[in-house]
């Protein structure tokens, strides 16, 4: 027997091999930053930018459905926060009788495993719908396509895949937007020729690579000298990198592709007795708190964590036969010094690894579920 394998990729002779920058995408996301979003701003996880919609009438059916969720991992605070939110959202839908059960497989950051997980769901899961948070873009494409071929609704979120077979692909505006927000902020607050250290978690994840790709471009255009390094989000590494940078030249700014570990970066300046840098982190509580405490010039870009609510809600719409955006672009706006206080207040008592824009305030179990993990 032979599972049929689609030919997607045959054409693609790896044009994006090392190249994560696509001007068109950059421009689009740049516009989307100021786009108007459909839906109620009070429920941003349901908002979307007007665009193609998928007709889901063929999925319309009664009764509680079984959802199968293939998760890349919960190996970083951002994902853990989202995972909690998702579970709380699930409770709601279960009570409403929309979802009977959600079976989850966690690939622990392994492509190989996640492919096996998806295939297992297809063969053994008797799933009514698939939710997939891909571990990596290209590698997950064939598996996602196999899921699509079952004819069941497939919802993809966070990191993308190279196919549009999914009923809906849910994600915030994206990495370029993040890169633009952050880089422009640093450019505005620094002088030409100033030096910036760029801290990146790991290579090869589209949503992270595009953040840097956009920022790097802008830095170059405004001749800000940015030296980028990978940190695995390990604060020890972060602090040593910054310390060495400070020792060899005068560092004015710090840019991060994800805020996890931002505090260590700031403390490196404190310990060296240097002035605080202009800095961008993420909406992780640790950063927001340190930011406020130090009063440094900063920005908290956001890769909307509330997107973890959307997939299940999308499934609800799909089985209700309501159309859903084919590419569901969620709002993504940074936290600025002005609205920082509000978010600190709203998330008071949350652990440092919590993300301010998690959007679960109205879910059952708030705040406990997020507080004691």
């Amino acid at each position, binding site marked *: 027997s*032979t599972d049929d394998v689609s030919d997607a990729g045959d054409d693609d002779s*790896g044009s994006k091999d090392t190249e994560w920058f696509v001007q068109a995408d950059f421009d689009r996301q740049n516009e989307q930053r100021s786009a108007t979003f459909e839906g109620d701003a009070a429920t941003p996880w349901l908002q979307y930018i007007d665009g193609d919609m998928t007709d889901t009438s063929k999925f319309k059916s009664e009764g509680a459905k079984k959802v199968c969720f293939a998760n890349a991992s919960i190996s970083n605070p951002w994902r853990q926060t989202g995972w909690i939110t998702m579970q709380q959202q699930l409770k709601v839908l279960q009570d409403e009788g929309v979802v009977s059960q959600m*079976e989850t497989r966690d690939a622990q950051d*392994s492509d190989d495993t996640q492919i096996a997980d998806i295939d297992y769901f297809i*063969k053994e899961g008797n799933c009514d719908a698939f939710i997939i948070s891909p571990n990596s873009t290209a590698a997950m494409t064939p598996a996602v396509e196999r899921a699509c071929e079952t004819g069941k609704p497939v919802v993809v979120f966070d990191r993308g895949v190279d196919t549009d077979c999914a009923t809906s692909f849910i994600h915030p505006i994206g990495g370029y937007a993040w890169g633009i927000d952050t880089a422009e902020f640093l450019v505005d607050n620094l002088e030409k020729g100033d030096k910036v250290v760029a801290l990146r978690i790991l290579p*090869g994840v589209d949503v992270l690579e595009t953040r840097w790709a956009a920022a790097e471009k802008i830095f170059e255009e405004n001749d800000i000298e940015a030296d980028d390094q990978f940190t695995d989000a390990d604060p020890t590494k972060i602090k040593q990198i910054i310390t060495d940078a400070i020792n060899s030249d005068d560092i004015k700014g710090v840019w991060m592709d994800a805020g996890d570990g931002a505090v260590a970066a700031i403390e490196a300046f404190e310990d060296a007795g240097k002035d605080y840098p202009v800095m961008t982190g993420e909406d992780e509580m640790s950063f927001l708190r340190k930011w406020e405490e130090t009063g440094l010039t900063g920005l908290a870009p956001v890769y909307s964590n509330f997107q973890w609510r959307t997939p299940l809600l999308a499934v609800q719409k799909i089985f209700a036969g309501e159309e859903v955006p084919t590419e569901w672009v969620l709002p993504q706006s940074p936290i600025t010094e002005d609205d920082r206080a509000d978010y600190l207040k709203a998330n008071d008592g949350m652990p440092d690894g919590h993300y301010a824009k998690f959007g679960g305030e109205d879910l059952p179990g708030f705040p406990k579920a997020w507080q004691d993990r």
Partner: protein
Amino acid sequence: MRARLAALDSTMIVWIVLLISVVVGSIITAIEGRNFFSVGNIDNVLTTMTILGLIAIGQTLVILAGSLDLSVPFVVSLSSVLAGGIMAGQTSNIVLGVVAALAVAVVFGLVNGLIVSLLHVHGFIATLGTGLVVSGYLGSNYQGSHGSAPYAFRLLDATRIGPVPVATLIMLACAGLAVLMLRRTRLGHHLYAVGGNADVARMSGLRTQVPIIAAHVICSVTAALAGLLLLARLGVGQPTVGSQGGYDLMSIAAVVLGGTLLAGGKGSIVGTIAGVGIFAVLDNVMGVMELNPFLKDVVRGIVIVVAVAVYARREIDRRPERFGSAAPAETTEVAR
């Protein structure tokens, strides 16, 4: 019980442990309302076994020879991106891609072997080092997936013969070859000798470098094969795919779980395959149970130690007792 246990050799015990875990596993699966032996589930188990299995086969040889290979994850990644890049989706490039990946693996294994056997660097450090070298190369030259596998090549992953994936058959074939090599070739015999006692091997006129180098070369090749299978599976070359699997330590764990002496000189491929099987069944069952991913690691860790403990105590040989359970040793007499 002790006595009966003592009668078995470790390979047999591993298979018994595997059997037990299958039984327990199928029960738990049933409780979860699933069938362990359903096509899809068996497929999942076999798929999980394939990649680690291939790597563990090579690792077994290296360990038997008294060395270690911590560089396998990077060889896996390297071969997947190299082949992926060369194939670039073109069916016509498949052969070239495969050959190139294997060739590079041979050279790399050769380097490992030479460093260990000629420079006398302990395998642990030598391969830690060469692994870092490759990881640096990968990190510097590949951000994210690279190249792509043509349809024809991806069939390698998609095709099944009956319920058995072709990839798994490839792994088993390699295991077969390795067994033959160990039992019926001089290289195999010398591998045991060098791993058992390098001095004795040397005194017997063996060039002790040869088995060590050969083992490292073969290990890199099996790792490269694993990389190729992953390329077929992912459809693209992935510079992190090796590290994602944590194949360095897991393969060593599987080998020891399979009853091979970590110090070398004693062990078998057959045992290793069982060791890999135990991991696969474990993962499969924990998956069905939707166990928290972090707890999975806790369980893996405990199982590794406990399973090895089951027979590790027997590795140190006790003389046959004269008074008590066991029978006396054979005696030698002179022909009259």
